[in-house]
């Protein structure tokens, strides 16, 4: 990779919250959510759910992203809780990408609120890059109404690290010559790809800052952490040279849904119903992606947060809700030891295209009839809402007949690949 690259990493500041705030101001609300303790997430009435994003005043109450709304409300009694609106966030995200396209055609959407932008082909002096980043930041603030942080460097990793330095509404640089002074003093868990599992392992080896990691013996790291050891050592030294890839989709490898249940499930029937409600969405997503699956797995978490899972390889491919559901229930029965269940998940992998399909001799039931049924159900649900057609076993059960899914499959999700 040529050395003269300039990469920007653009990251919206507390994205969901500032988007919500900007939108509410634009429809005439007079309180800016960013200036009061507020969080986005879950249901404000029942207080179920977790914090997805928080305002800076909420941060002062030591509210953390990912904690339960109940815990957050205890820390800050007057907390404003806003339910998430994913369609609005997708609109904001798209508007941000459209805006960036004015500055460069090479944009990689890294997640819903983060983009990489290759500034190559322009004036490569650091001053020009800094001015351009400033212009991007200011035009997003003026036209779209929210603030972003921009990191500038020569590769994606350093740019991403730079945009994380100090928030909000700032431009930071982290060129290779600045790595020693700006990145090495940071705690090692701030490094991309070092998470809560890797951190204790590194701490045990006496590695506490990114600088410690960068100067550590690579052979020992490779021995202890295998391939990831090499990766994070390179990252700590600022070595990373992947391209800004406009099409960052890697193709779907599996589809899954899971749910945490608000009560302990102690009987088999309820668990089967919940599994079916998850399979409904998995099936719909599988069919809309034009794929068939041949591996089904079920995961259970009990009330002590111990989880286990079981999977089965099928000798045929299917996209039928009832077939997947039946197998998921069988797997559950084989896996379940009777403990109260708090969390259930179903996922399907080993996907293949549904254009051609090898039929099975041993499959019971009428495949064509089932296919038609699924297609009709999908069409009706698409037109009249996902609860327009439900399995009668859910009647009076008090359970959601169709469970899971964020409402939009075109939602760009975070990935661990730069």
């Amino acid at each position, binding site marked *: 990779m040529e050395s003269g690259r300039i990469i920007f990493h653009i990251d919206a500041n507390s994205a969901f919250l500032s988007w919500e705030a900007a939108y509410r101001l634009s429809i005439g609300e007079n309180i800016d959510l960013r200036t009061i303790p507020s969080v986005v997430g879950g249901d404000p009435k029942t207080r179920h759910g977790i914090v997805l994003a928080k305002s800076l005043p909420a941060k002062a109450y030591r509210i953390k992203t990912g904690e339960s709304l109940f815990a957050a409300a205890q820390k800050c009694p007057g907390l404003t809780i806003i339910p998430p609106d994913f369609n609005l966030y997708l609109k904001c995200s798209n508007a941000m990408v459209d805006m960036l396209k004015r500055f460069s055609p090479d944009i990689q959407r890294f997640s819903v609120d983060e983009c990489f932008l290759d500034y190559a082909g322009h004036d490569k002096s650091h001053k020009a890059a800094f001015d351009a980043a400033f212009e991007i930041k200011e035009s997003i603030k003026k036209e*779209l*109404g929210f603030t972003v942080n921009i990191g500038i460097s020569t590769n994606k990793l350093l740019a991403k690290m730079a945009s994380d330095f100090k928030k909000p509404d700032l431009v930071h640089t982290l060129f290779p010559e600045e790595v020693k002074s700006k990145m090495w003093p940071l705690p090692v868990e701030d490094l991309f790809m070092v998470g809560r599992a890797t951190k204790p392992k590194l701490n045990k080896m006496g590695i506490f800052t990114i600088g410690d990691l960068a100067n550590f013996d690579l052979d020992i790291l490779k021995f202890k952490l295998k391939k990831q050891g090499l990766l994070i050592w390179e990252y700590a030294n600022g070595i990373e040279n992947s391209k800004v890839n406009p099409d960052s989709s890697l193709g779907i490898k599996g589809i899954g849904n899971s749910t945490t249940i608000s009560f302990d499930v102690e009987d088999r029937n309820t668990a089967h119903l919940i599994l079916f409600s998850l399979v409904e969405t998995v099936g719909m997503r599988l069919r809309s992606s034009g794929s068939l699956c041949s591996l089904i797995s079920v995961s259970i978490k009990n009330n002590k947060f111990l989880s286990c899972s079981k999977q089965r390889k099928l000798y045929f491919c299917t996209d039928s809700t009832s077939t997947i559901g039946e197998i998921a229930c069988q797997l559950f029965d084989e896996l379940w030891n009777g403990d109260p269940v708090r969390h259930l998940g179903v996922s399907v992998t080993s996907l293949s295209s549904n254009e051609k399909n090898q039929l099975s001799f041993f499959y019971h039931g009428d495949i064509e009839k089932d296919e038609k049924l699924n297609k009709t159900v999908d069409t009706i649900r698409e037109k009249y809402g996902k609860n327009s057609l439900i399995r009668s076993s859910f009647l009076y059960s008090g359970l959601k007949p169709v469970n899971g899914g964020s409402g939009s499959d075109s939602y760009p999700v975070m990935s661990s690949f730069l």
Partner: protein
Amino acid sequence: MKIVAKPIEMIAWFTRDGVPNPIRFRIMEEQKALKVINVDKIVFREKEKIAGCPAIIFNCQSNINGAEKLYQLKYQMDTCKWILFKI
């Protein structure tokens, strides 16, 4: 002008190029009576795209209750709703 952000019923005409022009609107007053206001003059218009939601802002002037008043109308393009935004 102060923000009121009231939904209104609107009659508007659109040019062949798709530019909307408000003509007159009806608003529910506090006493639950409907009031019709003619848009006498569009002073200027601007586009905004706050939070990714495109809208057109019209700064207008009308004679309301015998007094010339400036106000702002907002046309939300994705929902096709008209709002009396500021007055």
